[in-house]
């Protein structure tokens, strides 16, 4: 009798899964505007929802460098699927970092197994990067909380079971764990977006949602902002990884196309202007991957420098992805604008990467502070 060992949760495992289960279908999902339920189940079976959670909770205890590699691979296949992993990761990480023992025991195994899917609710109709402008409120009520407000652009909001909602509390912004099935939660799908079209966005209204005291995640008061900062840091890390994946997908698609397409009898790949575009893609994907890995290594060491390193990785990778996805369409010409080739999807998805988890403009304002710090090699 032979015993079948569970596969290691690493880049190779994710690559194989993406190539067989995601890449062949990503364009169809993009057109349909949703990810099928069967794929969500397969992600769970592959152990990819929250593999950084410890084995005691049903995770695999992988390090952050490996998590980044996995999210890169998924981003190479489909940015919408990667977006679902991103928000699930954000909630799962926040729970692990700031949750009480009771909260971790209640939700940890569910999130690790993918039986409960998470989403992140911060943006509102009138507040995106300006997080101080959120108007959703959580007021003390019957020993717990009463939640009112509207969240918008919530990735996987159409499908998620557990929402990490940021609201104005009595003294500062606080984080609440809110089941999407709670009375007073109303989910309105948002369709037909420019990019990540199958990430099942929603606008979610909270009308007198009554929550128990156990809904509060993490500290209140001065440190409550850290829940948001830490959660966004993980989101930014995942988006950086996904952006690296988009650049790699552009390289793969363009190398294939340029080898086959001929102009005046010459393969595109032999034309210097095409070579220039490909060389910039190859160079930038390596640079972005290194920045991502550095941010991951600092996370694994618990080094505070990871926060700035992640800002920089996300800024570089997302802007490079948008630039190279545009060039990927250019290399494909009219074919690049058609649904017969995936580069149009990469182009639309890459633009989203420059906006989510801190817009490029917010990143540049934050990263500029690095210039005034003492540099320690």
């Amino acid at each position: 009798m032979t015993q079948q060992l569970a596969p290691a949760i690493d880049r190779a495992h994710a690559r194989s899964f993406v190539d067989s289960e995601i890449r062949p279908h990503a364009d169809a999902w993009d057109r349909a505007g949703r990810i099928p339920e069967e794929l969500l189940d397969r992600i769970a079976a592959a152990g990819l929802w929250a593999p950084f959670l410890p084995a005691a909770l049903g995770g695999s205890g992988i390090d952050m460098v490996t998590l980044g590699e996995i999210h890169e691979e998924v981003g190479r296949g489909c940015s919408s699927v990667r977006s679902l992993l991103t928000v699930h990761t954000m909630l799962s990480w926040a729970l692990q970092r700031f949750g009480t023992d009771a909260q971790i025991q209640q939700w940890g195994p569910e999130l690790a197994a993918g039986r409960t899917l998470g989403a992140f609710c911060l943006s509102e109709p009138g507040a995106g990067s300006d997080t101080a402008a959120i108007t959703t409120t959580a007021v003390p009520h019957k020993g717990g909380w009463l939640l009112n407000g509207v969240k918008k652009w919530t990735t996987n909001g159409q499908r998620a079971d557990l929402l990490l909602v940021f609201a104005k509390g009595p003294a500062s912004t606080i984080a609440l764990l809110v089941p999407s099935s709670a009375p007073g939660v109303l989910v309105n799908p948002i369709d037909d977006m420019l990019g990540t079209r199958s990430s099942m966005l929603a606008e979610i209204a909270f009308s007198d949602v009554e929550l128990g005291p156990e809904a509060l995640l993490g500290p209140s008061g001065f440190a409550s902002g850290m829940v948001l900062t830490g959660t966004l840091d993980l989101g930014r890390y995942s988006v950086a990884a996904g952006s690296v994946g988009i650049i790699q997908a552009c390289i793969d698609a363009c190398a294939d196309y340029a080898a086959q397409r001929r102009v005046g009898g010459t393969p595109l790949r032999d034309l210097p202007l095409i070579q220039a575009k490909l060389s910039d893609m190859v160079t930038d994907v390596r640079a972005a991957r290194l920045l991502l890995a550095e941010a991951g290594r600092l996370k694994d060491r618990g080094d505070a420098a990871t926060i700035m390193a992640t800002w920089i990785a996300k800024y570089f990778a997302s802007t490079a992805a948008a630039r190279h996805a545009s060039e990927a369409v250019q290399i494909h010409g009219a074919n690049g604008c058609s649904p017969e080739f995936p580069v149009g999807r990469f182009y639309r998805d890459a633009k989203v990467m420059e906006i989510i988890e801190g817009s490029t403009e917010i990143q540049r304002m934050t990263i500029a502070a690095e210039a005034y710090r003492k540099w320690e090699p």
Partner: protein
Amino acid sequence: MDTTARILSFITNRFPQAEITDTEDIFSLGYINSLFAMELVMFIEKEFTVTIPNDELRIDNFRTAKAMTELVDGLRSAVV
């Protein structure tokens, strides 16, 4: 370097223009935002090999380098 000096060094490394003493309220200097608060907590946890529980994440524990030193000392003695 003792605990207080290491904490002061971390803060002044981030804000080289800051001239602070171990009893100066760092929140009154206008430097602190949630990003730096997160970096500060991560620094303390890694540098001194402690875990700061949620109920210790109070502003008074981080107001001065002296208060942070007392927090570290308290967490270390709790482990021992």
